[in-house]
C-alpha cells in the first residue's frame, strides 16, 4: 500500500474518528447530567417529578435506540422541529443513556446502608452535605464498574447515528468502502479504531477505579467488593 492510497483511507477515517469522539464526549456529559437529575426526581418524595422520571425511564428503556434516533431526526420535522443531524444524534444518545444511568445511580444510592444516613444526620450534616459527602462518594464507588460498561456501550452506540446521516467514523467508513470497493480493508480499519477507543476508555476506568479504591470496602480490582459490615 503506497502513501497516496494510505492517505485516501486515513484522512476520512481520522476525521470520522474526531466526530465520533465529539459525539461520545458530548453525549456522555449530557447523559450523566440527565441521569443524575432523573435519578433525584425518581427518588424524590414529590409525586409529580417521581412519576415523570419513571415514565421517561420506562419509555426509553422500552423502545429501540434506533427508533428514538429516527423519531428525533425524521419524525420531529413533521411537527416543525428540525434538528441538525449531529445535534439530533447527541440528543438521542443522551436521552437514551440518561435513562439507564438514572436507574444505575438509583441502585447505587439505594445500596447505601441506612446507618450512614443516621450517623450523618446525628452529626448535624444538612441534607445536601449528607448527599455530597457521605452518600454519593460511596454510591459512585458502588456503581463505578457498571459505569465503565455503559461508557464502552456508548462508544459503540455512537455508530448508530450513521443511519441519520451524521458524519462520524462508521459513516466515514461506509462512504470510503463505497468509493474504493475495499469493504474488507475499510471495515477492518474502522473496527481497529473502535477497538482502540474502547481500550482507552476501559483503561481510564480501570485506573480511576484503582484510585477510588478503599481498603476493606472497594478493592478496585472489580472483584471481591465486600460491602458487609464487620
Amino acid at each position, binding site marked *: 500500500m503506497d502513501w497516496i492510497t494510505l492517505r485516501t483511507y486515513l484522512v476520512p477515517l481520522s476525521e470520522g474518528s474526531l466526530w465520533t469522539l465529539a459525539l461520545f464526549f458530548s453525549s456522555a456529559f449530557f447523559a450523566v447530567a440527565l441521569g443524575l437529575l432523573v435519578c433525584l426526581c425518581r427518588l424524590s418524595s414529590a409525586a409529580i417529578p417521581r412519576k415523570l422520571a419513571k415514565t421517561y425511564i420506562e419509555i426509553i428503556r422500552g423502545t429501540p435506540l434506533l427508533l428514538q434516533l429516527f423519531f428525533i431526526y425524521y419524525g420531529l420535522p413533521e411537527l416543525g422541529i428540525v434538528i441538525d443531524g449531529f445535534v439530533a444524534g447527541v440528543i438521542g444518545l443522551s436521552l437514551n443513556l440518561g435513562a439507564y444511568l438514572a436507574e444505575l445511580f438509583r441502585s447505587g444510592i439505594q445500596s447505601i*446502608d441506612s*446507618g*450512614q444516613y*443516621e*450517623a*450523618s*444526620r*446525628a*452529626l*448535624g*450534616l*444538612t441534607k445536601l*452535605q449528607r448527599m455530597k*459527602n*457521605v452518600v454519593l*462518594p*460511596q454510591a459512585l*464507588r458502588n456503581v463505578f464498574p457498571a459505569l465503565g460498561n455503559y461508557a464502552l456501550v456508548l462508544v459503540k452506540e455512537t455508530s448508530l447515528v450513521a443511519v441519520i446521516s451524521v458524519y462520524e467514523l462508521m459513516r466515514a467508513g461506509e462512504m470510503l468502502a463505497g468509493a474504493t470497493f475495499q469493504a474488507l480493508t475499510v471495515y477492518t480499519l474502522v473496527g481497529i479504531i473502535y477497538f482502540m477507543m474502547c481500550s482507552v476508555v476501559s483503561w481510564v476506568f480501570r485506573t480511576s477505579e484503582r484510585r477510588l479504591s*478503599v*481498603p*476493606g*470496602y*472497594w478493592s478496585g480490582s472489580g472483584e471481591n467488593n465486600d460491602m458487609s*459490615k*464487620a
Partner: protein
Amino acid sequence: MTQHSDDSAAVITMQGVSKWFGHTQVLADVDLSVSPGERLILCGPSGSGKSTTIRLVNRLERHEKGTIRVCGVELAENDRDLEKIRGDVGMVFQHFNLFPHLTVLQNCVLAPTLVKKRSANAARDEAMQYLERVRIPELAHKYPGQISGGQKQRVAIARALCMQPKVMLFDEPTSALDPEMVKEVLDTMVGLARDGMTMICVTHEMGFAREVGDRVVFMDAGRVVESGAPEAFFNAPQTARAQAFLGQLIAH
C-alpha cells in the same frame, strides 16, 4: 420516679412523650430527665422502646405527643435549630456507622468542618486529641475496613466527641462486638464518665451500669417501669417485669 435534680437545670427533659409506628404505640407517656453530668442507664427487653427514646433526643425519630427539651431548646415540628441540637448531642450506634470511604481522621473532622465550620487544621488537631483520648491515634490514617470492631466503636466515640457535645447517647454500643472487644469500648466509656460527660447509655452491660451509672431506668412495652440507683435496681428490683428481665440476664 426519682428525679436527680430539678427540671430547670436538666440537659434533657421528656414529659408525657408518646410515639407510634403506624398503629403500634412504641412509647407511652415517657417522663425522663437527665441533669448535667448524670450517667443514665436505659435497659429493658428488646422492643421496650429504649432505643427509640434516645433516638428522639437527637431527632432521628419524631415524637407525636408530649414535650422534649434538649439543652433548653424544645424539639418542635419546625426544626430550625436541628443542626445545632445535633451538634450538642453526640451519638454512638450499635453498628458504628463509620463512613467507610473516609479514613479514621477524615471521619472525625467531617462534621466539625462542615457543620461547625472549623478550619481544617484546628479540626485535625482536635480530632487527634480525641483519638488519643480513645487511645488509637496510630489508626488516624487507616480506613474503617482495616480496623477491628472495638477500634471502630472507639473511632465512633471520638468522632462524636469532636463535635464537643454536651450529652452523649450510646445505643447498645457493645452489642455488635466480639466479647474480647467489649472491654476496650467500655473502658473508653468509663473514662468519659469520669471526665464528667453527661451520658445516656442503652446497654445490658450490668458491670458497666453499676460502675458508672447514677441511675438505671428500666423500660418495658414503651413505658418507664422502674427507675433507681444501680445497686438498688440490680439487687432488689421492685417490679415483677424488672425481676423477670434481670433473672433472664443473669441466667444468660
